[in-house]
């Protein structure tokens, strides 16, 4: 059994990786323990609001790389620990059995050399699949500059792999992560993409990365604009076939003159995710959302911003608009659009119907008509202000008897 202190160190060094999904794999339990759940499953939530789906852990945090933003970097005095493949496997199976986790997210600092580290990771996941007969979800982190044969071997056993871009441009990589470069990340990504396509084409038995690849970028550690980040994202989806791109607000964990000292605002990360969803599920192209050298607006969400720039398309009639257009209405998401499509086959929809069907009208009412009726703001100029105000729900606060200075002095006796 793994020592508690080892688990603590290896978890704390892994926790800043944002990827947590366990979706996309339909692996079956063939005589052992575990299976994939194609929609993924969250098992717990921590007070930071993030879900715990996978056992997210490093094999080792003893790194030869020296990336400025990373708390496992060589020149940083953090306690070091390593776990053996057996310890990781045992931990995974026993946690999984108790339904604590959906699978394993195994990463590692570059320990000794990239090849050595990748070999350890592959050995662990192989052991887990063969000796421990574990068929649950496994997400494996790719180590840049590891041997291509090791990469292929890993993909045969893992459900998903990821190489973290970390920084959205070559220039920032050079500055902040001197041992990484674009090539060391793109080459294995493209290799896996190529091999996965071949494997799928051959319709062979077995698996080759059933849940595909993902990556992660730190936002706010380097000067790239949202427009640039989203263009890179779109090309990763289209050219490299990634399943997800994660964004991580920069959190200062180490002091370095090259890095900003403040936490990057969570709202920027949120807007990037909203734009990311528009690219993947709503049929938007990045050119419609934001110019290359600009950031997304913070006051309204990217779909609202697009709609306000393109008022010539609105208002749309909910009883007639095609799905693609409904999806472009601010405030109407995939589920609401489906409900509307289904309900309008039987009756002509009114605003009352929409409200009862729980279609959120706070934003949508400015952009739709229902049965020819319009319920939004007539003065187009004030719509943006209304939408921005609607973004910030008033936070009701309990009034306190003891909040005034006088009351406080009455309590403490201090004048």
């Amino acid at each position, binding site marked *: 059994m793994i020592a*508690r202190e080892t688990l603590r160190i290896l978890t704390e060094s892994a926790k800043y990786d944002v990827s947590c999904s366990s979706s996309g794999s339909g692996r079956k339990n063939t005589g052992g323990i575990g*299976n994939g759940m194609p929609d993924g499953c*969250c098992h717990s939530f921590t*007070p*930071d609001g993030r*879900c*715990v789906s996978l056992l997210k852990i490093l094999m080792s945090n003893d790194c030869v790389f020296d990336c400025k933003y990373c708390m496992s970097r060589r020149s940083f005095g953090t306690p070091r620990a390593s776990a053996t493949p057996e310890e990781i496997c045992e931990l995974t199976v026993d946690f999984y059995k*108790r339904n604590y986790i*959906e699978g394993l997210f195994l990463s590692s600092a570059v320990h000794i050399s990239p090849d050595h580290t990748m070999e350890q990771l592959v050995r662990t996941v192989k052991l887990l699949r063969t000796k421990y007969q574990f068929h*649950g979800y496994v997400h494996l982190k790719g180590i840049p500059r590891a041997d291509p044969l090791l990469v292929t071997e890993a993909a045969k056993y893992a459900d998903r792999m990821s190489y973290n871009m970390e920084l959205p441009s070559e220039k920032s990589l050079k500055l902040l992560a001197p041992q990484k470069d674009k090539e060391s990340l793109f080459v294995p990504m493209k290799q896996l993409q190529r091999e996965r396509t071949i494997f799928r084409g051959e319709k062979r038995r077995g698996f080759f990365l059933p849940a595909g690849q993902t990556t992660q970028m730190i936002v706010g550690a380097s000067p790239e604009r949202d427009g640039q980040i989203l263009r890179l994202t779109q090309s990763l989806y289209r050219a490299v076939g990634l399943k997800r791109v994660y964004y991580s607000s920069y959190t200062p964990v180490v002091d370095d003159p090259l890095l900003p000292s403040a936490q990057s605002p969570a709202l920027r990360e949120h807007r990037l995710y909203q734009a990311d969803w528009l690219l993947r599920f709503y049929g938007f192209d990045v050119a419609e959302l934001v110019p290359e050298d600009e950031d997304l607006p913070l006051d309204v969400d990217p779909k609202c911003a697009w709609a306000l720039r393109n008022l010539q398309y609105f208002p749309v009639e909910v009883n007639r608009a095609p799905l693609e257009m409904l999806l472009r209405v601010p405030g109407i998401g995939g589920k609401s659009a489906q409900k509307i499509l289904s309900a309008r086959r039987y009756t002509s929809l009114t605003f009352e119907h929409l409200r009862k069907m729980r279609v959120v009208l706070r934003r949508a009412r400015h952009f739709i008509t229902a049965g020819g009726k319009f319920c939004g703001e007539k003065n187009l100029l004030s719509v943006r202000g209304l939408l921005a105000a609607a973004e910030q729900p008033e936070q009701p606060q309990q009034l306190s008897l003891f909040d005034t200075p006088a009351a406080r002095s009455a309590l403490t006796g201090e004048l």
Partner: protein
Amino acid sequence: MIYFFDGSKDAFLTAFLLAYRDQNAVLTAGNRQLVLGQESVFVSADHERARRCERRFTELDARCMHDLSLLLRSGEDGRGQIALNYFRKIAERGRPVRGEMAEDAVREASECIRRVTLEAHRLKGFVRFMESASGALYAPLAPDNDVCDLLIPHFRARLGNIPFVLHDVRRGKAAVWDGTHAFKAPLTEAEILLSADEDKWQALWRQYYASVNIPSRKRIRQMKGYMPVRYWKFMPENPSAAAGDLPMQRAAPPAEQDGALHPHGSSRPLPPPPGR
């Protein structure tokens, strides 16, 4: 007229046949204050009539019996009435009405079904098993809706031949997979002899849960939104302590009594089902 039924499918169908023409009918499986001057009747299942009714409904809508089984699992007192209105609509139209979300009856039924399936879905993640000395797994839970046995196929597929018990302590029943058969059984109190390492694994899990959190980002509301507080009770990671709701209450080291350990290492047996 108020029609009381026992919550079973056959009793519902029998009551439906009596009530569906009566526009003022109230159909209920819960306790309901009797209103003076309102007539009430207790309907017990007539299996033959129920079969006929079921056959007819299946002709009209092949999936409606599945909807009914989910509606009747709901823990809401209004479930009988919601089901009555929904089935009335099917009878009226003579075809499936599932998509007519603009109709109150359909929308209410669909939302009720969604609450049941949502809870089943959430519990797939939030159930926590303990390992007994024999290797079988035991999980106590107190769901709002009667969903225990809906979870069996899910856990059976992933746990292979490990036997497990899902104990609904609120309703005093259990859904069991014994390695070869799945069944439901009444179960009020359970005393589990835990495996030797169970406490160590729970301690490791608590350590993991504490370490993976990023304390500088505190988003308790989000945490509670995704994982409602009512599910925290049976989680060994003790989210309420982590969220700062309660002083840290570490389970005391398990007290050994005649070699038998109570779950969670406490010496109190599981709570009896509250009277419903």
